[in-house]
């Protein structure tokens, strides 16, 4: 446990020095406050861009506060996920291609310790970024659209964060096996495949982690949670990813 803590400390130091711990949360905050702002000023933006057919703006109805928050989380599901995955793709692949993993492995450190320290560092970045982003978005939404239920919002953001963590963990696993860009491609690809499968067969695959995004939107807008299935399967998926990544690192260390 002490070793994991030391490695985690090193990872966090690296995230600070590469400014990752600053720029990822700042981007999440920008994305978060842009969504309510652009929704609020949409008629003005359309007017300024010209060529608006007459009568179109009369039909524009301001969406409710909860809907805007659900849309904001949707932004994190696309651009946010891309940023997080690109940030994690080199975490193990970079150590392998740079040769530092051997230096790390000659010390008496378990592969599981390395993998879990890396994962914990990514989780910290995710929590800081999502927390600040959602807080900014919620403040703007309350100012522009109306009051929000903070309890529902926290539950929804937590579920969405769990889905993002699934994509991050998958990329970490691929990063233990392939080069960075390939790991990012496969990580995003498998997350996209899961959500596609879920949108094609929503009733059969309602227990998969991909259902977390819909569940999160339902909690924020309607307040009904649904089952624990998606959260449990996401937890299992994350643990399997970490275990498999540790096994791959151990096997790569001893090529016999």
């Amino acid at each position, binding site marked *: 446990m002490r070793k994991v803590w030391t490695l985690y400390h090193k990872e966090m130091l690296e995230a600070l020095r590469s400014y*990752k711990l600053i*720029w990822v949360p700042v981007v999440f905050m920008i994305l978060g406050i842009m969504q309510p702002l652009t929704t609020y000023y949409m008629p003005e933006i359309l007017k300024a861009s010209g060529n608006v057919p007459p009568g179109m703006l009369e039909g524009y109805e301001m969406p409710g506060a909860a809907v805007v928050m659900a849309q904001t989380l949707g932004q994190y599901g696309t651009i946010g996920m891309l940023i997080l995955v690109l940030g994690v793709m080199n975490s193990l692949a970079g150590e392998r291609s740079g040769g530092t993993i051997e230096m790390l492995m000659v010390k008496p450190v378990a592969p599981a310790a390395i993998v879990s320290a890396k994962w914990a560092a990514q989780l910290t970045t995710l929590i800081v970024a999502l927390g600040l982003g959602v807080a900014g978005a919620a403040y703007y939404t309350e100012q522009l659209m109306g009051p929000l239920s903070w309890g529902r919002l926290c539950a929804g953001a937590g579920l969405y964060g769990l889905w993002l963590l699934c994509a991050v963990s998958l990329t970490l696993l691929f990063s233990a096996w392939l080069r960075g860009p390939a790991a990012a491609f496969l990580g995003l690809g498998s997350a996209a495949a899961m959500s596609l499968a879920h949108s094609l067969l929503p009733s059969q695959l309602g227990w998969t982690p991909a259902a977390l995004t819909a569940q999160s939107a339902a909690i924020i807008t309607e307040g009904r949670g649904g089952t624990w299935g998606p959260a449990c399967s996401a937890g299992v998926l994350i643990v399997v990813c970490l275990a498999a990544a540790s096994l791959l690192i151990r096997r790569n260390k001893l090529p016999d």
Partner: protein
Amino acid sequence: MDEIKWGLIWPLLVLQAVLAIIGLISLAKAERTRGPKWLWVIILIFGNLLGSVAYFTIGRKES
């Protein structure tokens, strides 16, 4: 929606500026980048959010 609420817009501009400035600091310290440095300076200053994200994700080379 009578007037534009500048009180809500300036934080967005500040965040964009912070992002570009962090990018420029990181660029000044970086030994190697993918592509010429002067190009990244232009992208960071004029590229808004996407420019900064592009620099942080693909612009830097690990030594």
